[in-house]
């Protein structure tokens, strides 16, 4: 059971830690849902073509990083609203994957192929993507808290003027954080694909939005993101069990993750604001 919950937490950890970077750098990227969708599809497609899950994962990360970088540069250059531009990506991602799925594989349904394996188990049955996710969280936690780079990243969010006065461009950190977030979200999407070894359209199912909630739920802290991801994964696991018993209609259960997110998000926001006031 714990292994199942932890492997469900891996995609949330990856996307959550990416969203945390953008939040710390001063402009939360709400495109996580879109990049998870794209990442899940790219990972499946490239793995099928190359028979290598490594290549699939790498391709997903690169596509995510490049597109997010381009989007961030576009916003910097034109002064476009970052929320609305990121929303554009969320909307486009679903359309792009569906159109490409029809064009390349002739279906908009579930994609299965023997060349795309379910995630490899390493270290006596631990999901390889879980290892990747935990490593990502640890690296980013240390990077943000313990390095000059992390200090500047946080300064870009908290006090951009101070950073510019020292001759460092806060915009570069913002753009960089978006690129990293794009890559991490795409890896999170890839993790969803490899967990079952298939691509399910719409399989991201709001996890990209939950990743944003996880940032606040974890009090904008990398370890908090880790804990919040596991909490949501546990809820997902439980709702899977409840669905199995058939006592509550499956459609209704789809509303559970956002409802839980809303409650937890409201509580953490309230606590945070209380502590600031005192």
């Amino acid at each position, binding site marked *: 059971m714990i292994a199942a919950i932890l492997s469900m937490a891996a995609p949330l950890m990856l996307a959550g830690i990416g969203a945390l970077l953008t939040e710390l750098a001063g402009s939360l990227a709400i495109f996580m849902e879109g990049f998870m969708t794209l990442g899940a599809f790219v990972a499946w497609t490239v793995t099928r073509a190359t028979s290598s899950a490594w290549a699939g994962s790498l391709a997903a990360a690169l596509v995510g990083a490049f597109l997010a970088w381009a989007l961030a540069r576009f916003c910097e250059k034109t002064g476009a609203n970052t929320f609305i531009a990121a929303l554009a990506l969320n909307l486009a991602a679903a359309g792009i994957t569906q159109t490409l799925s029809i064009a390349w594989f002739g279906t908009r349904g579930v994609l299965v192929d023997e060349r795309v394996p379910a995630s490899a188990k390493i270290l006596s049955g631990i999901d390889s993507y879980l290892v990747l996710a935990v490593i990502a969280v640890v690296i980013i936690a240390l990077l943000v808290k313990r390095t000059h780079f992390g200090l500047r990243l946080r300064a870009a969010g908290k006090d951009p003027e101070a950073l510019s006065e020292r001759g460092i461009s806060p915009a570069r950190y913002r753009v960089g954080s978006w690129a990293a977030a794009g890559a991490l979200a795409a890896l999170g999407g890839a993790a969803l694909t490899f967990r079952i070894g298939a691509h399910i359209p719409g399989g991201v199912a709001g996890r990209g939005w939950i990743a944003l909630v996880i940032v606040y739920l974890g009090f904008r802290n990398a370890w908090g993101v880790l804990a919040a991801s596991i909490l949501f994964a546990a809820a997902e696991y439980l709702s899977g069990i409840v669905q199995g018993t058939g006592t509550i209609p499956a459609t209704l259960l*789809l509303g559970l993750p956002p409802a839980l997110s809303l409650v937890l998000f409201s509580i953490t926001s309230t606590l945070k604001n209380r502590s600031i006031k005192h």
Partner: protein
Amino acid sequence: MLAEMRDWKQDKKRDGKGVSRGVASGSILALIAAVVLSTILIALAAENPGDALKSFFITPWTSLYLLGNMMDRSGLLIVTGLGIALAFKGGTFNLGGEGQVYAGGLAAVFVLLHAPENLSTPITMLAALVVALAAGGFLGAVSGILKSRFGVDELISSFLISSTVAPIADYLISGPLRDPSSNLLATARIPARLLFPRILEPSSMNISLVGAVLLAFYFAFFLTSTATGYRIRVAGSNPLFARFAGFSPSRYWMPVMGASGALHGMAGFFAVAGTYGLCHRGFSGGIGWNGIAVALIARNNPVALIPAALAFAWLETGSSSALLSSGLSMETGTFIQAVVFLLVTARLLPLGRTFLPVWLGGRK
């Protein structure tokens, strides 16, 4: 204080001219880009590009049926666009439109189906409207209260509320409220006497369109010529100044989010009692998101919403008729939305000028 206020207003006006010109060109560029992209997509995807493009550009204007449907659609987009624009003006961002439209429509259908037979038509319709406004308004107001009382970000909370409500509505429509005698995942049909009179049979255009247009003009008046409207705009555009003028900008968050939700609920009512005649699963699809696109194109100007909604409705109708005629299925709708969202807030002119020669107005 009053003198200060007047100064600020004039400043705003002076600035306003230059800004609004640049801004209008941004909206028009975004629309042109959306048209060009749809044209390319359709031409690439269709086996017979000539026919497909004809049904994209010309058919919607020549067939009264499509024209009527297009006008009907634009009416719904005006109302949701108004909701989005009002929230924007008051300094909030309503991302829960889809769920609010869904809830409003479902609540209205419930009233229309269960009202006593002997109740007169206008009163029943009025009751349905009130219930739809209340359902959508409640969802919006919750986000507003969470923001002003507890500092919860309304962009995320409104989206989460919408995502919670949609599955519940899906469940109600496919379960308890479903019409068992029909194969559709939908409620029973609303009695004909409780539908908005159609204007252009057999299209779905109906008198709710008139209501939508009047509402746009009313909000233009409300925002520019009433004290409350003025305060909402100040609270949204310059919260610090609002504090100097003696009122807290957060006071308006709950009312504008509530009103925004109520307008979405009204669009849901218009859709079920005007367009569809019943409430089917997922009927709100796109009305909420496209409302955001339309409000962005119109730069939150209520009267400008009318042409913006019409343009957007044409893009939707045209692209779907082109895809139908070429027998393809593709999500052009999402691409159009995406392009509009990407470009509409961008200042492309300065970017473009870096690529132009100096004698054409390029940057040195």
